[in-house]
């Protein structure tokens, strides 16, 4: 599948072009999520858009990278209504701040959660347990 990246402040322009251009017409957003690359300094968070041209049955993947210290990416909810919940989920798990999103709050995790669990610096296991110690469970 064709994959390409663009600067993060260009994401709306690129998506709008892919949507409007008659020969491209990628008008269906199938998926949106993020990836955390802790080693790539300055571009730790990658937001991935999966687009589909339903007429010609062609798929494409578009990525933007952002600094984890300022994870602001423009929201695509104005262009794709489907992006609403997917951006909320991406915010929930990776903390990507989608600028312009109408309701950017947690959707799957508990509201009291105070971190973004899929960022690599957080271990998968529940850290609040006291009965599962490292010796017995090989953490």
């Amino acid at each position, binding site marked *: 599948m064709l994959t390409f990246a663009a600067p993060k402040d260009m994401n709306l322009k690129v998506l709008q072009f892919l949507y409007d251009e008659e020969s491209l017409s990628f008008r269906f957003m199938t998926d949106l999520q993020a990836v955390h690359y802790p080693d790539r300094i300055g571009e730790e968070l990658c937001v991935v858009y999966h687009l589909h041209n339903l007429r010609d049955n062609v798929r494409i993947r578009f990525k933007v990278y952002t600094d984890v210290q300022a994870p602001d990416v423009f929201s695509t909810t104005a262009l794709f209504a489907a992006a609403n919940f997917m951006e909320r989920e991406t915010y929930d798990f990776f903390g990507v701040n989608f600028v312009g999103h109408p309701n950017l709050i947690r959707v*799957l*995790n*508990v509201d009291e*959660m105070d971190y973004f669990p899929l960022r690599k610096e957080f271990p998968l296991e*529940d850290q*609040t*347990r006291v*009965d*599962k110690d490292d010796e017995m469970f090989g953490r």
Partner: protein
Amino acid sequence: MATSFEKVVSLARKNSIWPLPFATSCCGIEFMATMASHYDLARFGSERVGFSPRQCDLLMVMGTIAKKMGPVVRQVYLQMAEPRWVMAVGACASSGGIFDTYSVLQGIDQVIPVDVYVPGCPPRPEAIIDGILKIQDLVHAEGLRRRNSDQYKELLAGYGIQ
């Protein structure tokens, strides 16, 4: 026949436990097998599965309880009338099981008191029946008014329940 009123009530209670199934995953499927004709939970007076917490005596939590589901389990428990008992069926309900992760409650005893834990992943119907029998022993042995004992009040206070 000479006996005490307390013994009669205990006997009646233990042989007419109405379970409230709180089934979230595969342990619930095992419970369905336990209820059905082959294992036949009705033999122990528990064939009447109620789906209203107001009517039931035994909360059976079967399956993974996500942290987001925790307050729901607690709410269901609070809605049950005394006397009430709780059974944690399977590894997930008892300890979180294999789901040692940020989103899963590591055992329902973090939110409500549990009387009997049934091990297994999932437990076989025989194990669930064994758990029911353990609950029956509890119901039979404890007095008429467990809820008035200091120990019980202290336990509930430990969970922040009046």
